[in-house]
Structures are given as C-alpha cells and as structure tokens.
C-alpha cells in the first residue's frame, strides 16, 4: 500500500552564487521513507553540502512520521551548521509544518524558484 518514494539529487546555484544541494522527493513520505529522507541526507558530505533544499513538489502523501524524518534531518543539519530550506509544500502542509514549529528551523518557500532566489 505504500507508494514507493524516490529521491533525486541536483546541484543548483542560488541567487547569492552559492551552491545549493536540492533533494527532490516523490511518492509517499512516511515511516517507510527513512532511507530516502534521512539516508540520502546522511550520505551527503557535510562540508561540501552546506545549503540543502528539500523539495516536496512531487510528494503525493505525507504524514506525521514523514514530518518526523524531516525534523531528524533538521536536527543533524543544525549540529553541522548546514542551512536547510524547504520548498514545494501544498498550502495544507505549509500550514502543518508551521503548526508543528518547523519554520523556526527551516524557511519554507512555495517552490524551487522562490527558494533559489532567496538562497
């Protein structure tokens, strides 16, 4: 019943000229997505990936266990002084992420273009 989740990685350049590592998720983000979310993040070399954009535009289903995985990434990133930004959330999940306090540790952008313009 769980739709397979996929993640793709791309190096982008922000408006500031800095390199942004974009992780684009698709499918379901739930408790079964640990490898896709936390595993993919942990596989990045922390020194060379200082700015990371998590893009949820292609995500079809997201639940609280999936949000907990995002919090785990934020926890680890804060220890390594990495900046995490989030894009592509629907208005509903923008509300939910705000409700649980994630906006205190990551800026939410409506889409990748808006994120790159600000980073």
């Amino acid at each position, binding site marked *: *019943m*769980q739709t397979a989740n996929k993640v793709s990685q791309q190096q982008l350049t922000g408006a500031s000229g800095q390199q942004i590592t974009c992780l684009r998720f698709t499918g*379901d983000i*739930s*408790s*079964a997505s640990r490898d896709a979310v936390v595993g993919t993040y942990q596989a990045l070399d922390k020194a060379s990936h200082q700015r990371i954009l998590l893009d949820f535009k292609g995500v079809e*289903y997201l*639940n*609280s*266990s999936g*949000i*907990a*995985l995002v*919090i*785990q990434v*934020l*926890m680890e990133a*804060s220890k390594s002084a990495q900046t995490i930004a989030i894009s592509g959330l*629907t*208005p*509903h999940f923008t509300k*939910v992420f705000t*409700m*649980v*306090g*994630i906006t*205190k*540790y990551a800026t939410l952008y409506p889409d990748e273009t808006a994120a790159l313009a600000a980073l």
Partner: protein
Amino acid sequence: MTVTSGSKVEVRLPSRLGFEKVAMSTAAGMAKLMGFTEDRIEDLKTAVAEACINAMEHGNQMNASVPVSVVLSMKPNELEVKVMDNGTGMESPATPPDIDRKMSGEEEARGMGMFLIQNLVDEAEWVSGTGTDEQSFVRLVIRMNKESE
C-alpha cells in the same frame, strides 16, 4: 448522486501501514460529495490518516489480522468519523509538540499525530475501551465551515 444527511459508510482496514490511505480517500470522497472546500478536505485527510495510524500502531500493535474500523457518518453540515481499535485507548488532550525539545533530542521527533488531529478538526475525543470486548475509539467531527474562521 443525492447526498443525504444520515448516510453512513464503514471501512475495515488491516493494521498495516499504508492502508490508512483507503480511509483517507473514502473520507475525502464523502466530504467532496457534501460540498466541503478543498482546504477542509485536506484537514480531514490528514486527521483521518493520523487517527488510523494511531489505531494500527498503538491500538492494534500492528497486528495486521486485527482490523481498524472506520465509520463515517454524514450529518447536516458536518462529517463524523469514528476510528476504532482493540487497544486500551489514548490519553487526551495531546501534548503540543515542542520543536526546540525535538531538535535537542529531549523529545522524540515522532508523536505529533494527536496534536495534528486536534488542530485540524472541530471536535476530537478519545474514548477508552477494554480491548477486544469493548473497542477504544477516536471520534472526529469536521464541519463544512471551520468554527474559528
């Protein structure tokens, strides 16, 4: 299709993660028939999915052979959803997540389901049963127009 207040739909799900999406889609379909707005339907979908996940994980201990029953009842301007399991119930009200404590590792990253349910629907009550003989359930009510808006 004529939507009549009083119409009821029951869904029985195996306690296996992913099947909560069946209840979520059913609830969304009913709410759409009733004329709920898209944003209210999204609130309902998340609340129903979280209630089913709690029932599978905490109520039925992920025993796939023990079903989670979901009863959806159309009422005038509101949809009531009862999610039943064989556990001994959940404590309410939910503690709001403390993001600072989560970030410092003092609080588990997980454990936001009840909080989300309470904040996305108009009424949420958790009723404890005794297990197999008397099921525990969460009863959610979502109105077509959110009271606080």
